[in-house]
């Protein structure tokens, strides 16, 4: 009869641990918590404003919000960037300055550095335009389980680009934390960004 007693004791311990853990669970985020699901931030791209090659190290002490899009994007990209811009505007000036929005163009042919720099600048100084060759972009998007595709050009030469509509949010260490989606509300984005700024590192 010794063994069943031990097994019962072990089972009770496990159940107890699970329950305790459940109670200690932290308050939920407004955005989707994806910590641990994807690898840490890593890239080598060209910054549009000064055409310098930069890596993730250039944003080491910032909270990073990465978004894939293109400047000819009719609705999704400007909407997402505008919402991020609004969220940053709601935050403390000091906190907002701890955040960088990395807009990675997946349409490098049309998004020449000058055009891309001008585009991101219209959303605020904390927005950074990044571009790279298609192979680099493929590698980066694949790392975050995302992709993009170019549609057929119409008569005027315009073509659509399918891309991720998510914003990938990394903490100061470059670890993935949250995933922003189209229907997140602006207050929620601001609150989560504040929380990341405050909880992390300082």
């Amino acid at each position, binding site marked *: 009869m010794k063994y069943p007693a031990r097994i019962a004791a072990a089972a009770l311990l496990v159940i107890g641990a699970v329950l305790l853990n459940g109670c200690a669970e932290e308050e939920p985020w407004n955005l*989707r918590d994806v910590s641990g*699901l*994807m690898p840490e931030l890593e890239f080598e791209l060209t910054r549009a404003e000064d055409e310098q090659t930069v890596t993730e190290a250039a944003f080491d002490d910032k909270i990073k919000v990465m978004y894939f899009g293109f400047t000819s994007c009719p609705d999704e990209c400007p909407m997402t960037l505008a919402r991020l811009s609004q969220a940053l505007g709601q935050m403390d000036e000091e906190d907002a300055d701890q955040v960088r929005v990395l807009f990675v163009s997946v349409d490098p042919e049309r998004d020449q550095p000058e055009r891309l720099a001008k585009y991101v600048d219209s959303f605020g100084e904390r927005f950074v335009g990044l571009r790279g060759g298609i192979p680099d972009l493929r590698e980066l998007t694949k790392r975050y*389980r995302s*992709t993009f595709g170019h549609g057929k050009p119409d008569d005027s030469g315009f073509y659509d*680009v399918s*891309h991720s*509509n998510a914003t990938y949010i990394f903490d100061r260490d470059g670890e993935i934390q949250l995933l922003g989606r189209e229907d997140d509300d602006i207050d929620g984005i601001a609150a989560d960004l504040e929380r990341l700024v405050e909880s992390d590192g300082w």
Partner: protein
Amino acid sequence: MQLLLPYHFYPEVVAFCALAAGGYALGLRRMVQAGERPGVGAAIAWFTGVVLTYGVMHTYLDYLSQYMFWVHRGQHLVLHHLAPFLMVLGAPHRVLPYAFPPAARARLGAVLRHPVLRWPYRTVQHPLIAPVLFVGLIFFWLDAEIHFDAMLSIDLYRVMNASMVIDGLLFWWLIVDPRGRHAGGLGFGVRILLLWAIMIPQIMLGAHIGLADGVLYDVYAVCGRAWPISPLTDQQIGGLITWIPAAMMSVIGALVVFRLWLRESMQPEPAVANGAKA
């Protein structure tokens, strides 16, 4: 050529396909050497199943499956329904043992019959549990939240696809096992019931997805689609694939069961009847 290269390299897929193809080929050769006659149709079915599994996991199709809902549904149709069904039609219980030398074969048989393996196997193959597992896995991975995580995490994605293949092999083996009830298999009538039992929920789920007004799986918008396509169109095609061909597999399975049933009923009654007469 680019289309035949893997989008992501999965060692487990390469190992599974290489072992399945190599082991079966070796078994076939030794079987012929031993004077036995393996079935040509069975061999074709087995290798087709292996090639299909490899094809949907280790070519451009895997890329499309990650970034297009309906291609993903097609991938699972192959991984969970079609490929394992073809593989178990390949009579692996006759051919694969020959891949091992006689001594190892006996030892392997003893290991497989050991209670530690036998009990879990009997449990998952229980006629009440097996269909629940089969349908449950489909529902589980198609839960919007779980599907979301599986499509974001490459590790979860691999677990998802592996679970489909393993469960597919177990379930379809239960259905097309040529041994009738007297020889330790499941009764043929029960098998027909199981096929019906898995068909109904799949039809309901497929219809639910295919006829939904809104987008159920936003992870494909999050990840970006392989080419610009309306999310609802993508979802409707995906729902249809979950609905019609998946349900059709039950009908095809039933045809195989009826054939086995007929064959058994035309054979003279086995040992029990003979013993009674003597």
